[in-house]
């Protein structure tokens, strides 16, 4: 037993080795390629296009299910003839008007909710009532009030954007840590400067989420609304283009229209929002 006691055991003091051999070794080419997210997603897309092409060729019914190559061809023709760019522009113009108006209203509502308690109640009541209401359900009413035209579209778009942006921004403001608030007040910030220099940047992850959700809602609502009430002034947007070609049984063009909707959605998400995130919340370590 005695030799187990600590003072009977020898002590040890070691020199720490200073130089090491190879600690890192480069990954193989394949490992590096496979680690690239864009490559993996690209490979998935190619696989899906291949399955589509083979299946469509097998059933051989261009009326119901055109091949991938026929869709790409139709898309290319429609783009080079200027039809799709024009329709897209007409959709996006309306969308930007509705989105912009929605953001302004969301800003006002959030300001009111941040400043007063009754404003908070107003925002919470209104958004819990109206947020679950699909924008498209308001379209008949909008047509009744504003007639067939862009004003009706903008009205439903505002409804699509307003609640998600206002709710997220308000939630973001409320979750700003107490110490940041106190820091802001410590250096004499109040009123608008306090909102602009402390609240908005501190709540930016939430605000960005609101903007993204609002954008997605607005884009879907717009295409759906155009499908329902179609042409307003001469041209009409992408939704109308899809509807028109369905009536003409130009199924490849329908697919081309849907493709464009997808591509624009992807572009906005991956180019615009991803970029904003990379320069802000990711860089600041507020979001992974």
């Amino acid at each position, binding site marked *: 037993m005695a030799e187990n006691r600590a003072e009977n055991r020898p002590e040890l003091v070691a020199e720490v080795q200073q130089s090491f051999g190879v600690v890192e070794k480069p990954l193989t080419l394949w490992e590096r390629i496979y680690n690239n997210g864009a490559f993996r997603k690209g490979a998935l897309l190619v696989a899906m296009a291949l399955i589509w092409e083979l299946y469509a060729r097998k059933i051989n019914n261009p009326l119901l299910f055109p091949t991938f190559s026929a869709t790409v061809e139709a898309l290319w023709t429609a783009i080079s003839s200027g039809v799709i760019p024009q329709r897209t522009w007409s959709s996006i113009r309306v969308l930007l008007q509705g989105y912009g108006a929605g953001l302004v209203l969301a800003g006002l509502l959030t300001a009111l909710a941040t400043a007063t308690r009754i404003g908070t109640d107003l925002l919470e009541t209104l958004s819990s009532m109206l947020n679950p209401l699909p924008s498209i359900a308001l379209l008949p009413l909008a047509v009744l009030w504003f007639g067939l035209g862009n004003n009706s579209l903008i009205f439903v778009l505002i409804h699509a954007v307003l609640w998600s942006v206002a709710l997220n921004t308000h939630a973001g403001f409320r979750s700003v840590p107490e110490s940041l608030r106190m820091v802001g007040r410590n250096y*004499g910030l109040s009123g608008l400067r306090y909102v602009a220099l402390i609240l908005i940047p*501190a709540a930016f992850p939430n605000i960005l989420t609101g903007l993204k959700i609002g954008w997605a809602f607005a884009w879907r609502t717009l295409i759906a609304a155009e499908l329902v009430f179609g042409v307003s002034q001469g041209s009409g947007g992408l939704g109308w283009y899809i509807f028109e070609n369905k009536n003409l049984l130009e199924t490849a063009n329908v697919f081309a229209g849907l493709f464009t909707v997808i591509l624009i959605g992807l572009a906005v998400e991956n180019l615009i929002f991803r970029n904003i995130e990379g320069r802000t919340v990711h860089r600041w370590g507020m979001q992974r």
Partner: protein
Amino acid sequence: MPEPLLDVRGVTLQYKTKDHLVTATYRVSFRVFRSDRYVILGPSGCGKSTLLKAVGGYIEPVEGEIRLGGEVIRKPGADRVMVFQEFDQLLPWKSVKQNVMFALTASRKLSGKKAEERALQYIEKVNLVQFSNSFPHTLSGGMKQRAAIARGMAMEPAILLMDEPFAALDALTRNKMQEELLQLWEGTRFTVIFVTHSIPEAVRIGNRILLLSPHPGQVRAELSSNGRDELGPGGLTLTQRIEKLLFGGNVEGEVRSHG
């Protein structure tokens, strides 16, 4: 005796929780003089943080008043800069340098080149020059607190208010930070009020220690410290005296039975 820089007279502080009205401190009085390292020490629940927030101007006393240089404190101001315990007091969207500059520009104290120069000068004092362009989330806890201290000191406030700034750090880092704070003080002789619940920290940091009793906080004693914790006239070290005052007379007996 010179005029005190900060004069706290009979201050009673209350705050409301969801279903209680809590009295945090009851008729607390103390005076802080220029270049003091004034430590407020007490167990949790003695209202020491609330007291510091009142000096900061975030809470108004229900009784008594707090005067800074003769003026009654009514709201937060850049002449009393707070350093908090929480690591999230740095603005995450600004680099270390921008955080320090933000304090100077937001308070309209300095702007542009001058703010940058002042910021760099204080970042150098806390040994963060290499990290002046880093964002807070890339820094360790100790570095974040150093940045917060640089931001507070760059304001060159009348009083620096520190609310347990080292409490969330590991023991080794805390030790180092205490030493650095004392070195900084040697260099500039700023006035600081330092809130802590650690007796060794109070003895080491402070030249004057205010002891508060809990529930609600009342002044138990105000002692002087030279940082060395030597045996005093009563045959007790400062630490032992503080323990005796806070926990009653049985400490000596405990010490003997352990010794």
